[in-house]
């Protein structure tokens, strides 16, 4: 049976940029500036968003906010049983996390399992004062008690829909789409 696809653009380039600008200000507002604040992007979807947030915050504050990359493959709760092992990427956190306020950045918040793994991984690097979560899209369907502190857009979706965040750095265009599989 042939599948019928319908792809809907839910956020364009300007929309993404506006969201990130707002999140940058929200982060600074909530944390009363950037003292003790660091950004950590989750590989791979969160890296470029973290970089953009880093740029925006640094520009606003006039000095560089530290940024790291976290690979959570080895912390996944399904990894031991996986027959085909995904290739782990490198984690690069070139600063001490102790007593830092960490803003985790990812593209889509879905079941929450990635964030659970990311928090475990972060804690292995030190004891942060606080962990906050920033995501571009929250599509619901949580399987764990996890909630984002900063959300670009809430996008109610069905389980059989695929939400894709395309970014210039990765796919050559900025665009969030939702794809339905009938």
């Amino acid at each position, binding site marked *: 049976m042939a599948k019928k696809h319908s792809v809907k653009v839910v956020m364009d380039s300007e929309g993404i940029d506006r969201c990130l600008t707002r999140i940058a200000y929200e982060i600074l507002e909530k944390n009363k500036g950037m003292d003790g604040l660091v950004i950590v992007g989750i590989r791979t979807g969160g890296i470029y968003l973290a970089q953009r947030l880093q740029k925006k915050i640094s520009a606003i504050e006039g000095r560089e906010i530290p940024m790291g990359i976290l*690979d959570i493959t*080895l*912390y996944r709760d399904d*990894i*031991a*049983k*996986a*027959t*085909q*092992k*995904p*290739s*782990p*990427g*490198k*984690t*690069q956190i070139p600063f001490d996390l102790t007593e830092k306020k960490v803003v985790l950045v990812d593209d889509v918040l879905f079941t929450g399992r990635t964030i659970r793994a990311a928090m*475990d*991984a972060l804690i*292995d*690097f*030190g004891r942060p004062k606080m962990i906050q979560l920033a995501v571009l899209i929250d599509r619901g369907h949580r399987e764990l008690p996890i909630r984002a502190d900063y959300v670009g857009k809430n996008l109610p979706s069905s389980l059989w829909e695929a939400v894709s965040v395309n970014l210039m750095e990765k796919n050559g265009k900025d665009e969030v789409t939702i794809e339905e599989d009938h």
Partner: protein
Amino acid sequence: MTKLTKKDILGMADLTVDEIHLILETAESFLEISTRDIKKVPTLRGKSIINLFYEASTRTRTSFEIAGKRLSADTINISASTSSVVKGETLIDTARNLEAMNPDIIVLRHSAAGAPHLLAGLVRQSIINAGDGAHEHPSQALLDMMTIREKKGRIAGLKIALVGDIQHSRVARSNIYGLNKMGARVVVAGPATMMPRDIEKMGVEAFTRIEDAIVDADVVMMLRIQLERQKQNLFPSLREYAQRYCLNRTNFKLAKSDAIVMHPGPINRGVEISPDIADDSGFSVILDQVANGVAVRMALLYLLSGGNE
């Protein structure tokens, strides 16, 4: 993405170029874990790894043990002496007993070539060959290749010289297989008494003078000489062996100016490598090999685990 479909890692002879790439790339991403304060990830929580060592080996066993522990697996070390095995329980019985305890991976070191192949055919667990007689030592070759790639950025096109007791060296055989597959030019040198017959058919050039092998080499890999070989008249004395085959400042000048020096350890200082060469971090990468060894073994354990379905 390539995946590792093999149940066992028995030798470099059986690994494809894609599989070698996958293992090395996985190992490279594991390297960072060992630099953390908390050198442990929960990946293989609940998995059990048995290190079944029929030959004394602090180095390899410790490396596999650390690798397993850094992935949160339970590692169990069993040391058995081969002599008691000949008299008592056979490898097959030992293996069946271990299998009944349901570990996930068995790492086997054995003095008899082919022992891991025997075991692999009998038990459902993954077997990693941690050295079988003079046959293969794949994790050593992989860590050597990882080190070469780290220092030289590539393997293809490099001239790599292996010097010493080729005949009895599983490290040599595994490296010849692996490096040839990755496109290196491999040359070997050692006393004619320790040069196995038809070695050229493995795709290497063979010399009896160390100088002929290391000229223009990018990598010089010195092999360990077992001191008891002297009793078999494979060389007249350590003194003469050292005079002819020890890597020193003089003969090392023949290699490329940016050549690196490797050794699988443990080193007989002044016999295989002069101390000033071994300790010169300008070109000696011997300690990098040890660090990479843990990462490579983590990669092997990671890639092999969980494939029992």
